[in-house]
């Protein structure tokens, strides 16, 4: 699918003229591919090198998001690997700018496919949460807010906090992780999750409120 726009762009000239060429004349990019094998090998080498330099520094972010989304080390590893495979395959379609949100968006798609593979349960749950998130403004301020004196959450070790975050519903967990751990801006989170910035904002508000409840419950329990 991606081959088509690239072929068209590779032609260099006007597409009208391309279309009017007699069929026996081959488009220029086909000829150049036959004649310069060495330079395509060199191109391929450069492409792999460029991809590695741009994408590998973000492997930690990709793997971490995969761990939070899939909640299982082996699946997260498979998803991160698949993400890098796809990213490399489609590296030509990446048009500059920060590459991290682009990689994380690919990873999120891989993870959603994994949700689907695991069965409808997780997918249905995610959809349900999307709907819930849209209504968040109505529910959020209806809740009891903590008084200023009640502030003072316990400090937990990383493992405990990770476990609490893992309990958040999918739609809220992903925005919280993208913001607080992957360190993306609202605009980037909106891009990765294919949601409007306003939705990102309300989901994040909801995510923090839910996490606070989990945190307080953990304090009581421990």
């Amino acid at each position, binding site marked *: 699918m991606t081959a088509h726009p690239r072929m068209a762009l590779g032609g260099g000239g006007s597409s009208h003229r391309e279309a009017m060429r007699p069929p026996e004349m081959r488009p220029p990019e086909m000829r150049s591919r036959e004649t310069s094998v*060495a330079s395509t*090998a*060199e191109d*391929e*080498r450069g492409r*792999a*090198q460029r*991809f*590695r330099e741009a994408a*590998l520094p973000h*492997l*930690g*972010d990709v*793997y*971490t998001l995969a*761990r939070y989304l899939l909640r299982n*080390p*082996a699946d*997260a*590893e*498979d998803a*991160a*690997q698949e993400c*890098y*495979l796809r990213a*490399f395959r489609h590296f030509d379609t990446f048009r500059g700018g920060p590459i991290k949100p682009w990689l994380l968006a690919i990873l999120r798609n891989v993870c959603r496919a994994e949700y689907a593979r695991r069965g409808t349960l997780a997918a249905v749950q995610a959809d349900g949460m999307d709907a819930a998130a849209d209504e968040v*403004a109505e529910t*959020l*301020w209806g809740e009891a*807010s*903590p*008084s*200023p004196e*009640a*502030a*003072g*959450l316990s*400090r*937990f*070790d*990383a493992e405990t*906090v*990770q476990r609490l*975050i893992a309990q958040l519903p999918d739609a809220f967990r992903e925005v919280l992780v993208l*913001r*607080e*751990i992957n360190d993306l*801006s*609202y605009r980037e989170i909106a891009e990765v999750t294919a949601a409007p910035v306003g939705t990102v*904002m*309300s989901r*994040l*508000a909801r995510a*923090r*409120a839910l*996490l*606070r409840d989990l*945190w307080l419950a953990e304090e009581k329990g421990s």
Partner: protein
Amino acid sequence: MTCEEALVLVHALADGELDAGHARDVEAHVAQCPRCAAALAAAREMKERLRAAPLDFAVPASLRAGIDRAVPVPAPVTSRRALLKGVALGGVASALAAASVTFVVLRGSHDDRILGDAISAHLRSLQADHLTDVLSSNQHTVKPWFNGRIDLAPPVIDLTAQGFTLVGGRLDYIDGKPAAAIVYRRRVHVINLFVAQDLGAAPSTPQLTIVQGFNVLRWNENGLNLLAVSDLDREELQEFGAKFSAAARASAQG
């Protein structure tokens, strides 16, 4: 500004995502609304708590190795092509270079060669769509298939119940000699288990080594050498070795 708006916008304020005008509006609201002030304090406190703990996960070495394999940096175009060109031209220097390449190819112990062959055979089996000659998850179909094709009776054990699916078998070559390849699958990961008389080092219990980023498990079972190659993580491959070994010993006694 209503509380409804402010309760969401305090998060954007805490995150530093508001422009100066909106930030002023939210701050003005918060100054005269205790409830929204509490929400802002709670958001800031939560951010501070999350910042304090290292919440990312360390990337496993096997993942790095997997990506290195999937996106390799191809060797510079020079070496082999230049050498071949040199040999064709018959220059003295290129003959010397070619000789040193031969040396490099022939160097390396018996053991290195076996490991190299096993990795190559594993990769070939994944790439060339030639994973199995006999495709069956039934050990009683796979085991007899090797009769007459190889002068040993490889242990073929169904480990489906233990989480390793038997996919089939294949005849392969390691160090120039035929070897039985028994193929298992765990999720998307393929395990090639090679069986032959001599596969180099073969301790009595499965031992793990890492070759070119692949996990390799080698051991000796009833006088045969076994060598498992996979990109599965090391714990799971060791689990495979332990379960296979236990089942092989049970069936040898029974």
